[in-house]
């Protein structure tokens, strides 16, 4: 029993040491790059995120991106706060077991305007599967002008029909090409995904974009 206690004490000390080392490392990085008051505010947001079990590196990266893009102090802090809020919303929508990269990708989708319930539908469409690529594709479509609802329905429908990551990336490229050739973003998405559903094995068994929304919302 004494041995178990020693092990527990060592583990506890190691945990405490690692946590404080993480904080010290983050503070050092922030102080080396940002003005002291900005670094202090960002550090507080990073600590909150760590306490909540959310990824912290994206917050620091966001602060550095703001500094590199020439944002002022308030803009940097606001950008980091938006990222933190989006990450919390993303994890809330996707569930507690969501991986770090999924949270970051989903936060990007949230920042792009994708509704949180669309993220939950995407999780249901791929239970147990990784959502990074579907979320990246979803965010890309919205960033290219596809209405968030239309993009969400398209990606959820394709995922529910069994689209692999590679299939989703190919869909994205076809949509991108269609938009570059003058197609209206929303129309192009519906057209490309409908074609894919008709051609993919088993795809015709699933709902087409448009009907999905009525069923799931």
């Amino acid at each position: 029993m004494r041995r178990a206690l020693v092990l527990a004490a060592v583990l506890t000390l190691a945990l405490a040491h690692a946590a404080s080392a993480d904080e010290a490392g983050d503070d050092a990085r922030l102080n080396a790059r940002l003005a002291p008051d900005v670094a202090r505010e960002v550090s507080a947001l990073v600590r909150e995120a760590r306490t909540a079990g959310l990824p912290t590196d994206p917050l620091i990266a966001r602060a550095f991106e703001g500094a590199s893009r020439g944002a002022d102090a308030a803009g940097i802090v606001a950008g980091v706060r938006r990222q933190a809020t989006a990450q919390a919303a993303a994890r809330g929508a996707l569930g507690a077991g969501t991986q770090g990269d999924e949270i970051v990708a989903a936060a990007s989708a949230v920042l792009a305007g994708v509704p949180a319930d669309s993220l939950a539908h995407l999780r249901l469409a791929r239970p147990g599967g990784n959502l990074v690529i579907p979320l990246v594709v979803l965010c890309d479509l919205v960033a290219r002008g596809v209405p968030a609802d239309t993009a969400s329905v398209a990606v959820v429908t394709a995922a529910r029909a069994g689209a692999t990551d590679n299939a989703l990336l190919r869909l994205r490229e076809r949509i991108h090409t269609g938009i570059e050739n003058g197609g209206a973003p929303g129309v192009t998405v519906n057209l490309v995904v409908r074609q894919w559903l008709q051609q993919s094995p088993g795809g015709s068994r699933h709902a087409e974009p448009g009907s999905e929304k009525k069923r799931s919302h």
Partner: protein
Amino acid sequence: MADRSDLEDTSARLDEVVRAAYRQPSAADEPARTRLLARLASETGAARGFRGWFAVREYHARPVWVAATLVAVLAAGVWLGVRLAGPSNAARVVARGSAAATAAAAAGTAPVTFVLRAPGATRVSVVGDFNNWDAEATPMMHSGSGDLWVLNLRLPRGMHLYSFVLDGSEWRPDPSAPLAADGSFGGHNSVIVVEGAKGL
């Protein structure tokens, strides 16, 4: 017959003598006992060391200490899980386009080639979460023909945001990679996913 009887008596006495001799402690018994005890003591000493951690023993633990130990071990497991699940490992690049991809896993990173056509630019660099968005950290090389700028990097597994910086001031997303949301600083970044063993 008498001879036979005498022989049997002699044999019986001889047996008794031999049995009695075996019942007596031998001359070497005490030193052997001492050696045996010494060896046992040394082995017990060894068991207190490294092998002692694996020895099967009987423990009497108070429930409160058992609970404390379990909580500590669980906390360590959760912490390790969070650390290992973080966005930092790799093997295959999924993002298509000019920041495309060859794979080959090696110690959690994978080679990535960034390519940008930038007519008129005199200096191009890549900025991203992998270099702290430092425009001076990762310059691209002019290909020597046309307007192509190229950079080979090894990136950790996971999702990365990046952008190109032309002539130190013009930020431009990768034209053929997926776009990320506008991160509140007035421009889109590009996304690259370096795939690995985490099920990406």
